[in-house]
């Protein structure tokens, strides 16, 4: 089996349009959540989101290309461009058949879908754009990255709601581990801040209805949490087979060591009681990585700020790790950027490996009063903590009962 390493990272989030800006703000505990600017929220109960700010895709891509791409694909392309540049890889020096793209999206081109459906209702079928289908299908997040960079290895998209990004990283890991690709551009992208989608998420009572300062609303594991804050963004990795990366002298951020994926088989939106599906996913990731519970020193939790997710995810950690749980640092990046749905696994995976690289674990913003049902782990409170991270997990748990856990390790030659 091949070893798999991360050699490039790219992100666009509510906190910044690149990795550096996002990470610096996360370390300072800032929030990227604010009132929605994308549309008029007068009739919406929920008026806040984590929106990307000052996004100017035309500075990297030509206007004709952009016209054919939904925002979700534009975000994917933007972060992929950063990750590819960051990796220093020259695809002309690669066998392009060995370079794959696996970028997840939970929903796909919502903006396009809504605009074209409105045309359909008002002007009839003859006015629906010929670009409706290629712009709305979620797999274009992977498809167009391959078109732009002419990459011809394994290419597909995984849709598993909020676990789409993590599953994509997991499958990219498998493609490389088992020798089906040398390089995979992987991660997740989502652009769900549209009038229709926000109404849907709001009416299912998934979103927080807290009307306090938007920056204080996402409070994972706090006793006063009342739902997640919807957000957009993308987080992309360049992943490579270790020997291939070494031959080209690549800088290595971290090793992808294991992947666990399970199903709840329980309910469309509620997690299985006690987080038993999440527990098995983490156990599988550990086993896959050849790690013992005692090896894990940090978990970047799914931590959505919903009642059930947070208490069951922590219960799953307690059940799996036993006495070790109290020594595992746990945080939720969603406390600052909100829930980027299918992008979450990518964005949070980047935060996890930067924690390994910088020996810094960010706080969970707005976590003031730990819910007794969430107790039993080492929450990082009162600002960023300096602590070595050798081995960590990044969890993503999706509607539909899709659980994914990725094990990242400090790279040791």
């Amino acid at each position, binding site marked *: 089996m091949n070893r798999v390493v991360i050699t490039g990272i790219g992100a666009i989030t509510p906190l910044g349009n690149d990795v550096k800006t996002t990470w610096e703000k996360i370390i300072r505990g800032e929030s990227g959540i604010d009132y929605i600017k994308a549309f008029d929220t007068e009739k919406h109960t929920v008026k806040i989101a984590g929106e990307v700010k000052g996004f100017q895709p035309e500075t990297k891509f*030509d*206007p*004709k290309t952009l*016209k054919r791409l939904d925002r979700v694909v534009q975000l994917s392309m933007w972060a992929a461009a950063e990750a590819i540049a960051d990796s220093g890889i020259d695809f002309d020096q690669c066998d392009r058949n060995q370079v794959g793209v696996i970028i997840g999206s939970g929903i796909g081109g919502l903006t396009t879908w809504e605009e074209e459906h409105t045309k359909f209702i008002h002007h009839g079928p*003859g*006015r629906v*754009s*010929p*670009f409706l289908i*290629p712009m709305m299908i979620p797999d274009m997040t992977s498809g167009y990255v391959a078109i732009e960079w002419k990459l011809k290895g394994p290419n597909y998209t995984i849709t598993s709601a909020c676990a789409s990004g993590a599953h994509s990283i997991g499958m990219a890991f498998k493609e490389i581990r088992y020798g089906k690709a040398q390089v995979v551009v992987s991660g997740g992208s989502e652009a769900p801040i549209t009038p229709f989608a926000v109404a849907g998420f709001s009416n299912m009572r998934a979103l927080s209805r807290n009307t306090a300062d938007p920056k204080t609303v996402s409070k994972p594991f706090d006793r006063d949490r009342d739902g997640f804050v919807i957000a957009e963004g993308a987080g992309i990795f360049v992943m490579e087979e270790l020997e291939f990366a070494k031959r080209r002298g690549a800088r290595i951020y971290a090793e992808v060591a294991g992947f666990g994926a399970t199903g709840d088989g329980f309910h469309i939106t509620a997690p299985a009681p006690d987080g038993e599906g999440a527990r098995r996913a983490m156990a599988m990731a550990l086993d896959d990585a050849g790690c013992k519970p005692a090896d894990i020193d940090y978990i970047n939790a799914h931590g959505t700020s919903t009642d059930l997710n947070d208490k069951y995810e922590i219960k799953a950690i307690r059940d799996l790790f036993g006495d070790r749980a109290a020594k595992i640092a746990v945080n939720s990046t969603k406390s600052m950027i909100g829930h980027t749905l299918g992008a979450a696994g990518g964005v949070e995976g980047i935060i996890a490996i930067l924690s390994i690289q910088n020996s810094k674990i960010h706080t969970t913003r707005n976590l003031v009063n730990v819910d007794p049902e969430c107790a039993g782990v080492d929450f990082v409170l009162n600002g960023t903590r300096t602590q070595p991270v050798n081995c960590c997990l990044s969890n993503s748990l999706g509607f539909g009962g899709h659980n994914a856990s990725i094990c990242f390790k400090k790279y040791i030659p």
Partner: protein
Amino acid sequence: MPLFDDVRNIIVEQLHVPPEKVNLEAKFIEDLGADSLDTVELIMAFEEKFGLQIPEEEAQKLDTVGKAVTYLEGKAKT
């Protein structure tokens, strides 16, 4: 030719080509970089601008700027 100006503006906007490339001889696919989906969208834009329906079999014949202008001028007169 005000109609030509309208047609050119639509083509420039839809295909992101410089206006000087849009002459009567220019072929949408070969000269202006359109693909099959672009040509469908162009026809829809003409229909919307000039308030008419272009039947599928007619639309398929309009492969140059000149043919489109002639067709639309003919419709404008009737």
